[in-house]
């Protein structure tokens, strides 16, 4: 059970910026995701971190085929995913599912929990009524909810329980990959720990692969085997999570880690406070996109764009200043 399950190659998503009502003119391009490549191994968790607007969620949407890909390809389980051919697409969509951030808006308030969890199975048309009913109660049990809850509505549940329902729905068709888009950021600490433990237990039990998108570095580190750091639509560093935390190489990763909150008042790490904010993706800086906020930028950084290259085993960085 090893090997690559998902490979993303040179993925790009550009959103045109239009002006005018009738005769719309394109006045610019927002490069939300700009040429990123990474691989996820079967049964592992890949974490994607970065600040808001860096393209994490757009990447997730591209993998879920919720947005049209501008350029690049997705290879899932050895097969290239073509957005045109339907037959393979159904299979792909059945094996890639998602859990979203806000459990209050991602569940339909007018459907009963049983219906919400059964919906993917009803749509797939491969289950009989009896099978669906049995599977719903198995799933409820799997995520730690009472089997009787299938007759209730989402509003009768708390935030943590709703997130469990969302997980059950994602698991309904036995997917191979689940995309977790900020699955715990809307929850309280004690509930957050419950959901994190649940997700890890499910991974051990079912061997499902996760792509975890979050901005909380401690959560990402706790859950992921490998982590990719994004900045303004680019991947700037990819490494095994322990290696990344022990030895961050890209200045942005260093700043991000130093800004993370300590777990004890006696831990005083060196603080790197970045000046300013993330530049607009409409006019990203030339050269390295981070050079405007980088604390050791050199002349070459504003001229040439660095490419992601391997500096040591399982550790890739895109920075001019790191020599191999």
């Amino acid at each position, binding site marked *: 059970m090893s090997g690559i399950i998902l490979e993303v190659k040179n993925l790009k998503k550009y959103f045109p910026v239009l002006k005018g009502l009738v005769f719309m003119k394109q006045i610019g391009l927002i490069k939300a995701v700009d040429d990123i490549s990474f691989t996820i191994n079967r049964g592992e968790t890949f974490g994607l971190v970065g600040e808001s607007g860096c393209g994490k969620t757009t990447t997730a949407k591209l993998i879920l085929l919720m947005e049209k890909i501008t350029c690049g390809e997705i290879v899932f389980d050895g097969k290239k995913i073509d957005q045109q051919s339907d037959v393979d697409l159904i299979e792909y969509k059945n094996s890639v599912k998602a859990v979203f951030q806000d459990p209050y808006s991602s569940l339909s308030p007018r459907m009963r929990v049983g219906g919400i969890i059964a919906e993917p199975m009803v749509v797939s048309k491969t289950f009989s009524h009896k099978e669906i009913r049995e599977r719903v109660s198995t799933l409820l049990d799997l995520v730690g909810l009472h089997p009787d809850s299938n007759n209730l509505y989402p509003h009768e549940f708390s935030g943590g329980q709703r997130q469990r329902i969302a997980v059950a729905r994602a698991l309904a068709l036995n997917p191979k990959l689940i995309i977790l888009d900020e699955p715990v950021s809307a929850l309280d600490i004690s509930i957050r*720990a419950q959901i994190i433990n649940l997700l890890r237990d499910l991974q051990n039990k079912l061997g499902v692969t996760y792509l975890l998108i979050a901005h909380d570095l401690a959560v990402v580190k706790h859950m992921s085997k490998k982590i990719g750091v994004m900045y303004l639509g680019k991947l700037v560093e990819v490494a095994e999570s322990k290696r990344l935390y022990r030895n961050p190489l890209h200045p942005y990763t260093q700043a991000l880690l130093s800004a993370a909150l300590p777990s004890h008042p006696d831990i005083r790490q060196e603080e790197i406070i970045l000046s300013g*904010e993330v530049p607009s993706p409409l006019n990203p800086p030339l050269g390295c996109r981070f050079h405007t906020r980088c604390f050791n930028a050199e002349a070459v950084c504003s001229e040439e764009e660095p490419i992601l290259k391997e500096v040591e085993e399982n550790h890739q960085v895109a920075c001019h200043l790191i020599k191999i």
Partner: protein
Amino acid sequence: MGKKLLEVRDLKTHLFTRRGVIKAVDGVSFSVDKNETLGLVGESGCGKTITCLSILKLLPNPVGQIVGGKIIFDNVDLLSKSEKEMRKIRGRRISMILQDPMTSLDPLFTIGEQIAEPIRSHQNLERTNLRKKIIEMLKLVKISAPEARIKEYPFQMSGGMRQRIVGAIALSCQPDLLIADEPTTALDVTIQAQFMRLLKEIQQEFNMAMIMITHDFGIVAKVCDRVAVMYSGKIVESAGVRDLFNHPLHPYTKALMGALPKMEEDMEKLTTIDGQPPDLGHLPPGCNFAARCPEVKEICRCDSPILSEINDGHVVSCLRVQ
């Protein structure tokens, strides 16, 4: 240092709703010294925000009522003040920063006008001096090109900048006490670090006391001097920040700390707290935490614990510890 600025004694704030009386704050006592930062930690619905709204007497009327206790600010009981007198205190002596910078600014006014509002109502300044003061405030919170920014509207700014504007409004009259209600939850990690450092710098410059409401022990570890942990309307433990992190005594505090993934170490499993916080409208007898407590004993279900001092400055309300 060492002088008490604010003392809350046995504060009880109840919400009178159609479903019945909800004891949102039920006998809370704490104090804040000058130049000190107190962290008020707890999960949502534990009464952190209601406690702070009670201090400013900004409770939703007529639902929220302070039914008992004393709030002594600078040797005066705030509960005896009239609404007119309270207006002179709010913004000038006690200010508040709210959680969401997207909704706490008025979209129809320029940020210059919004910063001017508290200054105008508390200080008599001429137009030119007022403008100077606004620019000074913008510089204090490190907004670049303040002369140009003064005419801009909130929508033209990013989240981090808006939160700094909210900070500028709160600090414009140099308050003695700043209440920050989860000021950074809506912000990104690096922006959060920027804002926290800014608050700390300003605190030192003005000798200001702060109450930091948060649910994140990381923020507590970073900026607070003392911590009070709240659970279902009561303070369950309060201590100096190092004391609390080194020797947490209350099971709830321990569980909350264990529930946080840590960067420094690898953990297989996080501690969880089973179940949900109790319904504040129908509290069971005994300790409020008994139903979820991993170390519960028979006595916890019938007797209510009281807050008592274990070590110097370390108070805890748990029957097992006492």
